[in-house]
């Protein structure tokens, strides 16, 4: 049996990956995603956990055809940088959308999806991806 995915790592990171848990600086208010131990803006170590809205707009995107080992099933994969309502930017794949329908500025929301599997027997990784908001919400 080969095991490529670290079990502790998959477990440890679940909240940022499942529900966009970030850290917020109690001193200056800056929100950090991924979560941090020390605020990079003011140096404070007094941070609290917070959950991001998951709604935002595409800042930039790419359609990746040459995929890494283990990702062929999902190809081509559209990756985007999304700026959430809170002003925090997140990088994640888009799902349920065709390359031709993506553009900068498109409104998206976070959904939980399968990201990859450690073969047929190992762990399945789940995390947020983004999908376009319904057409009527795009304005």
């Amino acid at each position, binding site marked *: 049996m080969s095991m490529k995915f670290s079990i502790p790592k998959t477990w440890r990171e679940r909240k940022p990956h499942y529900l966009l848990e970030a850290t917020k600086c109690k001193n200056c208010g800056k929100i950090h995603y991924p979560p941090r131990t020390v605020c990079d803006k003011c140096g404070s170590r007094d941070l609290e956990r917070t959950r991001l809205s998951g709604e935002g707009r595409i800042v*930039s995107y790419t359609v*990746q055809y040459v995929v*890494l080992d283990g990702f062929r099933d999902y190809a081509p994969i559209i990756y985007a940088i999304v700026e959430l309502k809170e002003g925090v930017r997140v990088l994640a794949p888009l799902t349920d959308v065709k390359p031709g329908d993506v553009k900068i500025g498109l409104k998206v929301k976070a959904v939980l999806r399968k990201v990859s599997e450690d073969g047929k027997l190992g762990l399945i990784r789940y995390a947020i991806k983004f999908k376009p908001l319904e057409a009527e919400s795009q304005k």
Partner: protein
Amino acid sequence: MRKVYVVGVGFTKIGRFFDKGLRELFAEAAIKALDDIGGENVQALVVGNMMSSSLGEQDNLGAVLADYAGLGGIPAFKVEAACGSGGVAVYTGYSLVASGLFDIVMVGGVEKQTEYPTRIVSKGLAQASDAEYELFYGISFTGLNALVMRKYMETYGISRDEMSVWPVLMHKNASKNPYAQLPFEVTIEQVSNSMLIADPIRLLDSSPIGDGAAALVLASEKYARKLSDTPVEIAGVGLATDHIYIAYRDDLLKLKATIDASKVAYRMAKVEPSQIDVVEEHDAFTILGYMNLEDLGFSERGKTPKEIAEGRFHPGDKPTVNPSGGLKARGHPVGATGVYQVAEVAMQLRGDYPGVKVNGEIGLAQSIGGLGTTVSVIILRR
């Protein structure tokens, strides 16, 4: 701090060398560099390398390479900063000599990429990104750069064909470089219509996967003249880092680490960008070719493609950029690239570079690890 000089250089051709491993490649470059200083002994070895661990299953690389290059027993260690490993190795070697710890230090760089199919090599390269929040999702290094390229084109209103002038210039320069991996010319049409890798990045926007090794010998002022008739001074060094998670950065269209590292290096060398005669910069992708020139202070944001189309930065201009052909066409043996660049600039300044020649006194080499996560800038003076 003591002055430090490049006194010896050596590098291999870059390519897919299925018959050579890390040891053979490095020994070839090291022997050339040692011959360049008349066979004198070096006192320590610093090696830049990214993937000996992930693709080569070899840690403890400094000792292995010192042994197999015939330098056995000397202090030796590997320096790793992803694709910027080579530049950081030079930075480290410089520090060892400048501090007075050693007088003669070899700085090497070596990468062996062609051991596995592309999907596995790409994964190794993508380890330059954030393992838990970028690589986790399977985004490749090309994918990350593509996010920046799209934003650049959209922000400045630059067309596909306008972007394509960079690879055309790089291939033209490389066509005269006997060490280049891709020594042939290409046209704008070929670049714009080459295969999509991660839209908008196409095959001919990308540096190739290749193997190679380079070596420098650095010496203190006391030894420089003894070891070389044409020593080249390392006049300024700068190193800076930035957030690894690219979405965390305020501005995708600059690499802050390049700006920060170059400011330090310019100040230390007491030069302005306008005084630089030759540049070797880290154009792993077309987009970086342009952004690097902007971040280093050679051109205005969003105007570089147009300037290059009009002849700026071509051979004969000041500065001449990437006369080697750059990462795009000379090749990009990852952890060795930063060492190639310094060796090439040193040869330009001492007058024995074998490809496109630049007649000048001051040169600059910029090496990037990750997408601007670690950047080193090294300024050389004849």
